[in-house]
Every structure is written in structure tokens, then in C-alpha cells.
């Protein structure tokens, strides 16, 4: 899954993209969403959700359940 696809799927669910930038290592994208979730997307197609809204985003992307944020 690439970053554009993730943004489209999450945004369609009313969770707005709030920040998008290349990851610190330069090997993918870091996406932030209005519910507090961040998604690290590798250029290899890997994806991992974290942060407060991670569970909701993981469900939308059919990712493994993320640890619940506070």
C-alpha cells in the first residue's frame, strides 16, 4: 500500500490528513491524521499505525491492531 492509497482510504472515513512528510530515514512517508494517528509508510509498501487514533486507522487499512493510545 502506498501513501496516496492510505490517505485516500483514511480521508474517506472523515479522518483528515494533517501532515505528510518524508520519514527521517528517507525510506518512506510519515502521515499524520486529525484523530491523532500517525502512519509510517515504507517505500516498500509496509505500513504501521501509531498514536491516539491508531486503532481506528488500522481497521480502515486492514492493518494488525495497533496499541491503543491514551
Amino acid at each position, binding site marked *: 500500500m502506498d501513501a*496516496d492509497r492510505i490517505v*485516500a*482510504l483514511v*480521508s*474517506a*472515513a*472523515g*479522518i*483528515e490528513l*494533517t*501532515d505528510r*512528510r518524508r520519514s527521517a530515514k528517507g525510506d518512506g512517508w510519515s502521515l*499524520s*491524521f*486529525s*484523530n*491523532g494517528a500517525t502512519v509510517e509508510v515504507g517505500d516498500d509498501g509496509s505500513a504501521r499505525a501509531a*498514536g*491516539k*487514533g491508531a*486503532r*481506528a486507522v488500522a481497521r*480502515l487499512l486492514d492493518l494488525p491492531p495497533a496499541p*491503543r*493510545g*491514551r
Partner: protein
Amino acid sequence: MKRSSGLALFSSTLALSAAASAFAARAADPPDGITKIETVVVIFAENRGFDNLYGHFPGAEGIDKASKESLEQRDRDGSVLSELPPVWDGLTAKGVTPPVTQAMTEHLPNAPFTVNDGKGFNVPLSVATHDLWHRFYQNQMQINGGKNDMFVAWADSGAMPMSNWDASKTDMWAVAQKYVLADHFFMGGFGGSFFNHQWLICACAPYYADADKNPAKPSISVTDDSGAALKIADNSPKSVREGIPKFVSDGNLTPDFYAVNTMQPPYQPSGNDAAPGADPRLADPAKPTTLPPQTEPTIGDMLSLKHVSWAWYSGAWQYTLDHGNHTPTPNFQYHHQPFNYYANYAPGTEARREHLRDAGLAGVSFIQAIDDGALPQVSFYKPQGNLNEHSGYADIQSGDRHIADVVAHLEKSPQWPHMLVVVTYDENGGIWDHVAPPKGDRWGPGTRIPAIIISPFAKHGYVDQTPYDTTSILRFITERFELPVLHGIVVRDRTVAAHGEPPLGDLTGGLDLN
């Protein structure tokens, strides 16, 4: 209609009392009889354009009165589309059964379509549908100078901006028929919820000082020469039929560092956790989406200055602080809490304890205050996420029924005989509307939204055609309680007048105060 006038309270970081005494002048010449209103309640729902819900309301300027030109959408090169593109990824939200898939939305005519049309998609009002871009620059590009013919072209959802609903069986439709539907009420700012909540309380654009030297730097937008549209990327699809547009930088900040798209509050509840080891009541300021505390005067400051009681009631506020957020219920929305961006209401302040109140789950505490006759003179009520009618994560029916229930309690409240209630939406949610917004300043007004004026003093069964925007709510509050006028209102009034537009009203066009 009498209109407020007066000097501005200029932007200042000075202490409020000093600023007020130095610069402010209160509204002059309030409308006759305005003091009959003793309690003001503002209910702020989410993301519906006027035509989206009330496009067929009897007597209103609805879709039936739209010109052919305003009904047709154009491609990014300005040519009229032969048909609408499909709703990319489908019309219904993930998990809805039966779904309306992308394939089922192919070849729609270039015209508005009704989502719950029994002969069409037949999706009921109880179903959440695909969300749409509702962003500061895209909204201006979609409005296209008032022609409203680029809503599809500059969207991320294909045909979805042209969707509307038959809402004639909803509870709030009946409320609108009983009282006043304002059919020329426009959102105060272009774009989304974050920005329009700021306009509701401040009539201002939040500011991120030195953003180019801070974590938010990559979120500074790149605009074209007009300054009102994003610069289109070289690899952007030329036609809407080929996909979502791409921009050089579609960020949260303007090139001069005003925050116009969603940023997170600097205080909890915020989408951003506290920095490790830091005060847990704060959000991490190093996160690129954390907005620094704001200092511009708000309507809350003005009310406090005049010792007028007020509160922002937020659904699921305390639940979220205590237990964290959960979806699909209550689905608390961090960026719908505008006072939580302001230093005057920082954690630990008396002002926060007094004015930022928990409305409870499903508004139960707010409803209790209504029933007890214990509302302050001015109340703002923000329903929790699943009850706010926002596309993508909420349906219309749940929020509509909830708000109608709140209105029913208000009608029975001991405070009702001298009450004004305004039910409106923060913004259009990216959805098309055919009426051109008044020409104003660089921040708005944006697309037309529904607004219902409810009061024992409301004209009954009336469609109010007075031009209003979100700041009209502030105009009424300012005039009623003789407050200093927020700077943004003064600028808005001047620019609207400079464009030769009729003045924006103060809601009294829907009232009979005599």
C-alpha cells in the same frame, strides 16, 4: 435592519483588560427589543451545505432555483464535463452493507444527485457516506469566483460533492418549518472545521509565529500568484477523470503562517500526546501539527470582560480526558474545541474551569442544565463526533435526531421564554452549493450552509433571506451584550461593503422583537 458599528478591538497580545480599555469600542445602537433575549444557545453541527440538506425546502432558494450554469461542473481545464466521475472507492463508508461501490457510481449525469432517492442509490439517512476534501484553498478553487462550477474538479472524491439528501422527513426539517430557516447563511471562513470553529469564537485566523523555523515548516502551503489557490504540481492529473489533483504543497499554514487547515490543540484533549516527561495536560509542541497557544481576543474574552456568563459545552469532553477516545462512539474530535487553542483557557486557569464544560456523553449534562434552567447567558454546544453529521464517520439521522431532542428540551426549559437558539453547521464539508458567497476578505465567507433560528421571538414558518455568515452569531451576541467588537468582524464588514455587497446581518432578520 439596524447594524452594529464601532471600532475594532485590534489584535493584541496585551493583557485583555489593557487591550480592551485602550482600543475597544462597544457595539452601538443595538436593535430595538434585543434585550428580550436573555439566553443565547449556539448548536454547531458538522459539514453540510445548504443544498445538501435543504435544497428542496419550500420557499427557500434551493436547487430548483439554480441556473443551468451553476448546476454543471467543469473539468480542470474549464471545459464542461460530459458526465461526473465516479465516487472513488465508493459512496458508502467502509463496512456499510450493502455498499454502494465505485462501479455503481459510474456515468452519473453532470448534475446534483440525491443519495437517498428510492429510484437511485436509495441509501438511507442513517448511513455514513464517503468524506470529501473540505480545505481552505480547495474551497476557494471550487467556488471559482462564485460560479461554484469546480467542486468536482478540485475534490478528492469524484462525484461526491454533487450529492444531496431528501431531508424533508427529518426532525430538524420540521423545526425549520416551525421557526426560521436562513437560506443565505454562509460559513465564516473558507475550508474546514478547524478554521470555522475559530471563526465562530474569534473571527480570526490562528497564527503560527516563525513557522518557517519550526517543526511545522513543511506544512507551509505553496500558492499560485493569486494567493487564493494552491500551486498545482507538474504531475497532477490534467482531468478529473484521471484522478485526485496534486499540489506542490497543500499544508495547514498559509505562506505567511496563518493556520487555515487542521492543527491540534496545544492542550489536552489533543490528538498529540504530551512530550515525554512533560506536563501531561499539554500536547507536545515539537509535533509539527501542534499549534502554539493563541492570544487573539475571542468572544469568550469579550463576554467575560462584561461579566456575561458563558460556556462551551463539549460532548464527551470529560470522558475523553478520563478514558481516551473511542470509535465509533463517542469519536471525540480534538479540533472542534476552539477555546482549547487559547492561552487564556490553558489547563489550570480559572477561566478553563468556568467556561470549558463537559456536555457529557450524548450531551446528557448539557441537557440537564437546559432542564434545570441553569444555562449561562451564552452557551455553545458541540455534539460528540458520532452525533455531529460529519461525512465519513457519522450519519445525518443520528445527529439530526439528537439536535432535535436538544431543541425539544430547550423549548421546555425555564429559560425558554427569553431564549434565542441558532442551529447551524461549521462548514459545507466539501459539498457543492449553487449560491455564490458574498465577496469578503481573504478568509471568507465560504460556501452557503443551513442555519435555523429558533426562539419564542422567531418569525414562525419563515425563510429569512438576509445575508449572514458565521460571524453573524457574534454580531448578535456583541450587540445584545454591548461587547467590544472583534477585529475580524470589523474587517469583514468593511470588505463586504467595499465589494458592494449588502451588509451581513445580526440574525434579527429572523426575529420579531416588537
